[in-house]
């Protein structure tokens, strides 16, 4: 405890600032003796027990700030401390909160929104310093709904006119991977499952880059992709022992939540790797499937740039160009179009794989769910005559009205009977 006072009764230094109603008192927490009472007039002995006054209390700046804003600012600081952010982040986030509070719409908002606003300010600060904090994490910490959070976030970015950079994927990979509890043996983690952090990080990064290049990341939540990539990286480092482990079990072992889309991201990533494997000479003979390709991820990643270029055509370029090139290749020896290392990677003509698939996001590769029919020609002018019969079809006849009223009354009666007062 600050100050440096002793209780005159028991001599303990455990003096607590407590207030009795509106009077501030200094009380010994051991014996309950009131050391000082009020600070208007002090005796010499009292002065020895005086506490130092914090800057914020002495300047009176908090008098101009409303209680709810003070509460909000305290929440901002608490959140920053919980997330173990550097101290500069705290000041920036507090500044954003104060700035937001100047707008009447925020001042009049509900407490729930003000609470969420705390998270928004911290998130914006982290984004601007490239600190990888996801919205899911913030919402979990605040016990907030993502919908409410998204609404407030979009509103505050627009209101304050802020320029918020995108989430930095590489940093997020590092942070997220480090949270996997697989780097040390423990009762839940068998020794064969323990992995070196650096190796796993680098391989995960390469897989995430590959996913980004092949349109698996754009438009999607980043975290499930990273989960799938981490899983594949981990599996591929010791496939013999780890192929039997499923994604769900992996996440449970690592003490990380499994995001729902991660399994479909995993399948997409595996299909990309399989298409790349078709272009690798010594893998074409093996007839790989989604399980066996994991063993060769190391090789595939080593040559990933070349393989992506060869395995995929730019989706927008005409397919004829790709087919023409394939025909040319079939005719003569390998052209110089390929990279240095790739000539050895190509098989003889007889075993050439199918023509390259277009490099498109998965949503464009799937066939459309329903064919939109072309809109019919409409020669409506807006001023046509409206026939009476057309309007009559929407009106009830008197008999129908009577029936309807009877039915409604019966339903009301039935309801009141079933819910006795």
């Amino acid at each position, binding site marked *: 405890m600050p100050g440096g006072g002793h209780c005159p009764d028991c001599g303990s230094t455990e003096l607590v600032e407590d207030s009795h109603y509106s009077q501030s008192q200094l009380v010994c927490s051991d014996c309950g003796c009131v050391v000082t009472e009020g600070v208007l007039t002090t005796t010499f002995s009292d002065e020895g027990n005086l506490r130092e006054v914090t800057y914020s209390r002495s300047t009176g700046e908090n008098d101009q700030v409303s209680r709810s804003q003070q509460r909000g600012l305290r929440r901002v600081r608490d959140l920053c401390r919980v997330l173990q952010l550097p101290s500069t982040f705290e000041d920036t986030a507090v500044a954003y909160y104060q700035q937001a509070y100047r707008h009447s719409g925020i001042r009049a908002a509900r407490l729930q929104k003000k609470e969420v606003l705390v998270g928004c300010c911290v998130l914006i600060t982290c984004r601007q310093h490239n600190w990888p904090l996801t919205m899911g994490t913030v919402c979990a910490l605040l016990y907030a709904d993502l919908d409410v959070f998204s609404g407030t976030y979009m509103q505050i970015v627009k209101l304050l006119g802020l320029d918020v950079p995108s989430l930095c994927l590489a940093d997020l990979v590092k942070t997220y991977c480090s949270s996997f509890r697989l780097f040390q043996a423990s009762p839940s983690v068998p020794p064969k499952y323990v992995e070196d952090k650096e190796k796993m990080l680098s391989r995960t990064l390469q897989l995430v880059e590959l996913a980004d290049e092949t349109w698996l990341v754009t438009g999607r939540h980043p975290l499930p992709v990273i989960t799938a990539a981490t899983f594949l990286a981990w599996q591929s480092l010791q496939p013999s022992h780890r192929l039997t482990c499923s994604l769900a079990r992996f996440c449970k072992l690592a003490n990380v939540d499994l995001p729902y889309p991660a399994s479909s991201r995993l399948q997409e990533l595996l299909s990309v790797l399989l298409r790349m494997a078709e272009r690798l000479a010594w893998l074409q003979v093996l007839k790989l499937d989604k399980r066996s390709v994991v063993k060769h991820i190391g090789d595939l990643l080593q040559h990933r740039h070349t393989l992506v270029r060869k395995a995929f055509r730019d989706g927008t370029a005409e397919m004829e160009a790709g087919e023409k090139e394939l025909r040319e290749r079939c005719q003569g020896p390998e052209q110089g179009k390929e990279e240095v290392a790739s000539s050895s990677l190509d098989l003889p003509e007889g075993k050439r794989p199918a023509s390259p698939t277009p490099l498109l996001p998965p949503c464009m590769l799937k066939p459309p769910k329903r064919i939109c029919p072309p809109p019919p020609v409409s020669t409506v002018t*807006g001023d046509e005559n*409206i026939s009476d019969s057309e309007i009559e079809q929407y009106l*009830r006849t008197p008999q*129908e009205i009577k029936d309807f009223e009877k039915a409604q009354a019966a339903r009301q009666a039935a309801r009141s009977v079933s819910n006795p007062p």
Partner: protein
Amino acid sequence: MAPTVCSGLDRVEAEAQGRDLRGPCPAPSRPDPQLGPASPFAPAGLINGLCATRAQSGSAAAQLAWALPPSRLSALLTVGPPPMEEEQTYLELYLDQCTAQDDLAAPRSPLLSPVVPDDGYIPNTSNSETVFNAHLQEVKGASGHFSSVDLSFLPDELTQESKDQSVIKSKQDIEENGKTQSQQSRLSLPREQDIGLGLISDSTLSKSHSQAYPGDADSDQPSPEKPNSTPLMSITPMTPVTPVSECSGIVPQLQNIVSTVNLACKLDLKKIALHAKNAEYNPKRFAAVIMRIREPRTTALIFSSGKMVCTGAKSEEQSRLAARKYARVVQKLGFPARFLDFKIQNMVGSCDVRFPIRLEGLVLTHQQFSSYEPELFPGLIYRMVKPRIVLLIFVSGKVVLTGAKERSEIYEAFENIYPILKGFKKA
């Protein structure tokens, strides 16, 4: 003479306005078996703007025609309503078909119908070109039919004129993509005026050409000696003067129109819900009657103050018709409903650019307009300043445009965004 030309053409054009279908109307239901699908190189762009009005403004055209000295302009106008007693002269036949072709062309305003992708562009033009050539032979042979007006030059002139016109038109097509047909015609007017002026001021026809199109790169045409299809054939369908990349060739489709109207009388919502079959009213949930009609398929929110919101229509006219139908229903229920202050509040359109888009890149370069949060929404929200439209851009290349009060705002916004998106085409 010049003022007469201008005013007459304006009048004719004004009459055409009411009839003109806006920009990207799909192909009309009247397929002409003889002609291929519409072509931006509709023969004799001069005829293009005028023939469309033939049906309605015959008298105006005739008046205009006789006011001018025998020039090609007047000649073409006179053949509108046949001044002669011959019913179907070859030229008449040809011009009839030109009109039909222009009718096909007009709604599409140099573009294809929205559902036809760019690959349909080439076959269309070549198709109509051959058709045009066939007719040209006929026209050439029958030039002697018209005695009162000297039309012997017509086939050759037509070739030359059409070539220049089509080149000009193609420039227009590419530059003013997506604008309404009326605007298109208005733009072609100055050219026609030039022609008129050029022709009037100079008796020789070859000179008039070079005067009419001073700025045209192709103005130094050889004298139109070749009556045949060669000059036309030399215009390969796909060599427009401006590069194709400047026009997108894609037209956004309107998906939803929201409009409001004031019925100007207090309404008893309970009575409406009781007497109308297509109404639902749940005062605990929402303080308005939700009414639906089948044609046009729309939904209306009718409030007790007499205000009404109509949603779900696919065009402005449909929205207005639907609002009128709802007002009529309310009228028939015994309320003194009127139809005041009909206003379109919002228009939503969508289209597909057909290539994937790197949203991360787009948000980096257009930070001040874009908002891309993949954790919240898979699309990028682009707030365009001029026109004030919000676009939702997705990785698949689909674009949704909303916030427009006018159809032209949507088209303009798409034309603004298309070159930006093309920049992010490559992986």
